């Protein structure tokens, strides 16, 4: 017994076994629903495949050559970047701004918070429907309202022409997702110690200086994470854009996710779609690594 105790920390190994046992279901499910489809996608990207049958012939890296040489991928990448950057910055600015307002003493603050946070919890389908109805050229409230207050004389075509369509999706995206920023920032604001503000006040800082010197640095860690998360999600966004504009006019709002969908299910080019999506992931991966490195160094 003594000899055994000398060599093997059996208790520790027992715990490690338990730990593995506890994570095992997650690993099994991950393998089934994530790792396997991912490997399958990479595998499919080496074939030219007719989607309905998944019949195809091996073409090696042809699909990737396509990706590099055809304009479609790159222009969609650009659209994706414009959309991601546009909607993300709007989300952050509005999110932080509204969070600051809602952090103050406000009448019926709880109700105001609920109203502001609600768009985030709304189904994308519902959000899109409501906005399409608002944007409607003939019966839409937006055009009608703008005409009533005299900003425009003729109804504006919101989703069918550029740059309106891009502005439209960016706007709806921001409206739908900025509450996420509000929630997170609000939660963080509540933990900023009051004495920091008092110290800043004693040092003679006005409200604006207090925001830049006290609030913002305190928010930085939370903003780093939010930006990362939201950037990934916005980059991947499919439902909202697909249902709002379908990628049009022409391909002005066709992001990578839509391009992949179109290749896979409209053109029945599953192999190329898989290659595009692998490309899409690589782009995201690169951005993420750069971002994590960068913010890691600063933080």
């Amino acid at each position, binding site marked *: 017994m003594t000899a055994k105790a000398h060599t093997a920390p059996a208790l520790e190994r027992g715990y490690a076994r338990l730990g593995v046992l506890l994570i095992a279901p997650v690993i099994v499910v991950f393998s089934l629903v994530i790792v396997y489809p991912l490997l399958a996608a990479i595998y499919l990207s080496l*074939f030219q495949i007719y989607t309905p049958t998944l019949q195809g012939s091996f073409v090696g890296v042809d699909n990737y050559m396509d990706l590099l040489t055809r304009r479609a991928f790159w222009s969609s990448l650009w659209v994706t970047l414009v959309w991601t950057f546009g909607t993300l910055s709007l989300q952050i600015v509005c999110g932080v701004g509204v969070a600051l307002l809602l952090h103050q003493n406000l009448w019926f603050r709880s109700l105001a918070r609920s109203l502001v946070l609600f768009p985030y919890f709304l189904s994308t389908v519902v959000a899109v429907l409501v906005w399409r109805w608002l944007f409607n050229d003939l019966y839409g409230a937006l055009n009608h309202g703008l005409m009533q207050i005299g900003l425009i004389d003729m109804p504006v075509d919101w989703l069918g022409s550029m740059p309106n369509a891009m502005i439209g999706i960016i706007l709806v995206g921001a409206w739908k997702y900025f509450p996420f920023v509000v929630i997170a920032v609000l939660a963080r604001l509540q933990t900023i110690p009051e004495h920091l503000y008092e110290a800043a006040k004693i040092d003679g800082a006005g409200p604006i200086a207090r925001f830049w010197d006290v609030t913002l640095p305190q928010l930085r860690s939370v903003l780093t994470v939010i930006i990362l998360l939201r950037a990934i999600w916005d980059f991947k966004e499919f439902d909202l854009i697909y249902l709002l504009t379908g990628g049009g006019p022409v391909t002005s709002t066709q992001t990578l996710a839509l391009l992949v969908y179109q290749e896979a299910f409209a053109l029945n080019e599953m192999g190329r779609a898989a290659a595009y999506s692998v490309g899409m992931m690589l782009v995201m991966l690169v951005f993420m690594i750069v971002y994590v490195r960068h913010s890691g160094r600063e933080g």
Partner: protein
Amino acid sequence: MSPRRLTPAVPRRAVLGGLAAGAAVAAMPRRIVAQDKVTIRWWSPQSSPEQLAAYETQMRNFEALHENVEVVFEKTSDEGYAPQLAAAFASGEVPNVVTHLPSFAVSNYWRNGLLEPFNDVIEMIGPDKFYEGANDIYEVDPGQYAGTGIGNSAANMMWLRTDLMEERGVEAPPRTWDEMLAAMEKLQGGGIYGAPLPYGRNSMTTLIFIGFIHGAGGMVFNPDLSVAIDSPETRDALEFYKAMRQYCPPGATNYSWGDSLTAFVSGACATGIYTGRVLINVNTQNPDIADHVTCVRYPTKSADIDFWTFNDFPSVFIPKAAPNMEETKQFAAFLFDPEGYIQQLHAAPGHVLPVLQTISAMPEYQNNPIIEKYSEEVDKMAAAAANGFNLGWESREHQPNAKAGEIVNSNVISEMVQRVVLNDENADTVLSETATRIEEIMNAN
């Protein structure tokens, strides 16, 4: 074109097997299929409440005749059927009968070896009951049918408001594009737009615009399926379509079928472009104008160019992998049983027109308030649809085009319209690029 070329060298199992190799799931047992009862799954993207009620009748009638059969209806959608069928074919879990998809989808699936020959079903229905030539479009090889039509539709009828025409001094429906523009000038105004033409990046714009190409005397493909879109006629069509933009509501840049229809039915536009569905919608949603609507075939560039009616030939077909093939075929044929078929047609009177001449003649079919009230319009549409074409089959001389579905879905033609009309790009450049892209799609796979 040979079907061989479309079926690549590697058999299906090669890819699937490769997929399976890495996956533990391959070893899992398959679902145990219920034994005694035979289940027939029926898919369609057309499912308005009235149509659903009609389907219900058809299914229950069939079940009453076949005790061991249960028919379930599963709804798909115009936007969703492609991925859903793709997933279904890929997995082998296919529906038994699919209806109301455009004819070119049928030829596409056929070319890829996914469909069961339909000859048996046509025999069961009775080939002589069909309108003359009604099945030509489904005759993929001589004497070999991939499916049949469940109906006809005349999708690009021009709908008119007679009250407005009178009020604004438009004496007769326009016949040519010049007359059309002149009429638009008069009809637009007072909060009413001229026409709800679609400029969206979607299939409606593609399909409608193909009608305008033909309206200018051009075509997308030559009969041998070489690309013919880069032509002066297409330029004319683009020019006219561009000229029409100012008579369309601002949001027309995003219009698809539903928006375009509603724009006419709600009274926002003086003319419309749609099938006979307009009739029922006007009567239920805007009865005020119900007595003032009529339809004509859509104008062409000049009077010496024939009308070209777009008929997407709503189809019926049977996937090859469908189980219980015997019952499936019986059911497919049963869809044309007069009682249920007429109810189905009545669900949207004038929208889906009968493919069996025996039905058109029946008093049960004629005995419907809408069909009675608008008998002239319905006849006009029936005649137009019977001579209709679509991208899968542009004229009697054309070979069936199995790639039509991909071309429509790729939006290459609606993008062309958008680039010229909305973005003001040079038509020559756009046309030659469009031709190249269509060729690419034709050569793919």
